[in-house]
């Protein structure tokens, strides 16, 4: 069976690419510290020697739209083009072409449907920065086949937080039951407190540093009991109007396992939002 060689949860900051490649007067003062943290984070994936990446993210109204909105969707295609005109325009993101691991997509769809998750699928999916940001930070060679999984954290009505956790647990089990000798890293990205298009956006820190501190503790300690005890669809409005992206972190806590402490924990207080990076090694730390 396949081995889960790493579980990785991260924020996806679309400004990283531009900040990290800027030079001279264009280079922001925090860029060097940010790059240093990302390079350490990247090493946690490299050390796991993955063959395949399962990548959990959320389409930001690019291909998925309100006339036909899935809650959870699995890509099943031999290839994925990536990034969109408005991401090039606003963030300077480059375009990508990534190979797909169709056999694992097929396995996840079948097993997920049989386990009670009515997963939608796509045979032609152009992916966005929720998945390409971790490619840029963790695997800039973009040389591994992927299985993209999209969640709806964006267009209410949304699934309950516990459903994200349940799906995360199921993704872990499904990858581990894939009849293959491949080493699979499961990578998911979301947000801590975040405000977009509201009065608290683009402040000197994220909109709710207290929520961020608690969230980092929940994730680092795998504290699903504490997290599920406090987080509801209603409560996530309070830290910032885009904080429902935190449910993708909760999904990744489900993948990592209840009570399992992360082997790598790091964060960076930036303007607008806090960055946070976590890696678990289910089979032991290879570093």
């Amino acid at each position, binding site marked *: 069976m396949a081995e889960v060689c790493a579980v990785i949860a991260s924020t996806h900051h679309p400004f990283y690419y531009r900040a990290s490649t800027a030079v001279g007067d264009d280079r922001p003062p925090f860029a060097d510290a940010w790059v240093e943290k990302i390079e350490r984070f990247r090493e946690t994936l490299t050390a796991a020697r993955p063959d395949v990446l399962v990548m959990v993210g959320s389409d930001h109204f690019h291909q998925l*739209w*309100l006339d036909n909105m899935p809650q959870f969707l699995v890509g099943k295609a031999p290839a994925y083009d990536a990034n969109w005109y408005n991401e090039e325009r606003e963030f300077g993101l480059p375009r990508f072409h990534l190979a797909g691991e169709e056999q694992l997509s097929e396995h996840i769809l079948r097993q997920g449907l049989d386990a009670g998750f009515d997963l939608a699928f796509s045979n032609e999916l152009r992916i966005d920065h929720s998945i390409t940001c971790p490619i840029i930070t963790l695997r800039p060679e973009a040389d591994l086949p992927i299985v993209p999984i999209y969640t709806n954290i964006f*267009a209410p009505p949304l699934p309950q937080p516990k459903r994200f956790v349940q799906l995360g647990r199921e993704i872990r089990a499904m990858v581990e039951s894939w009849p293959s000798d491949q080493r699979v890293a499961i990578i998911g990205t979301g947000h801590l407190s975040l405000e977009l*298009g*509201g009065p608290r956006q683009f*402040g000197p820190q994220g909109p709710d540093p207290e929520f961020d501190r608690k969230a980092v503790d929940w994730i680092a300690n795998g504290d699903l009991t504490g997290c599920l005890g406090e987080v509801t669809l209603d409560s996530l409005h309070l830290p910032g109007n*885009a904080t429902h992206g935190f449910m993708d972190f909760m999904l990744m806590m489900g993948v990592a396992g209840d009570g399992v402490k992360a082997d790598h924990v790091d964060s960076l207080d930036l303007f607008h939002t806090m960055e946070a990076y976590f890696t678990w090694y289910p089979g032991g730390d290879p570093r």
Partner: protein
Amino acid sequence: MSKYLLDKFLYTVDRDPELVERYREDPEGLVAWWEAEMANKILNVLAEERSTWLAFTEEERRALVEHDHVTLFSMGAHPFLTLTLFIAMFERDHGPLEYQKAYGAALAGFSHPYPDIST
């Protein structure tokens, strides 16, 4: 009132570079064209198989024509869509992050709960 139709406007304009420029330069003309040609076009469906029932209210039309992001927020238009499109149109006229901060400051009168964005 149709939050869905406001979001559809913001979404279809934001993803098309030509429409972004037309909306910046001639908002009244672009909104009129969009409502006539696009409001009832089901995306990914042939043009003749269009919807028949979607139209802006006068207040929605005015908010779009006036580039009034505060009123769009109050109506429950999706804040991500509004922000992304308005940055595309107006960031170029300002210094780094200046537009984004002013955009947020203009919304300072809102406190929790924010207007519902469910469609």
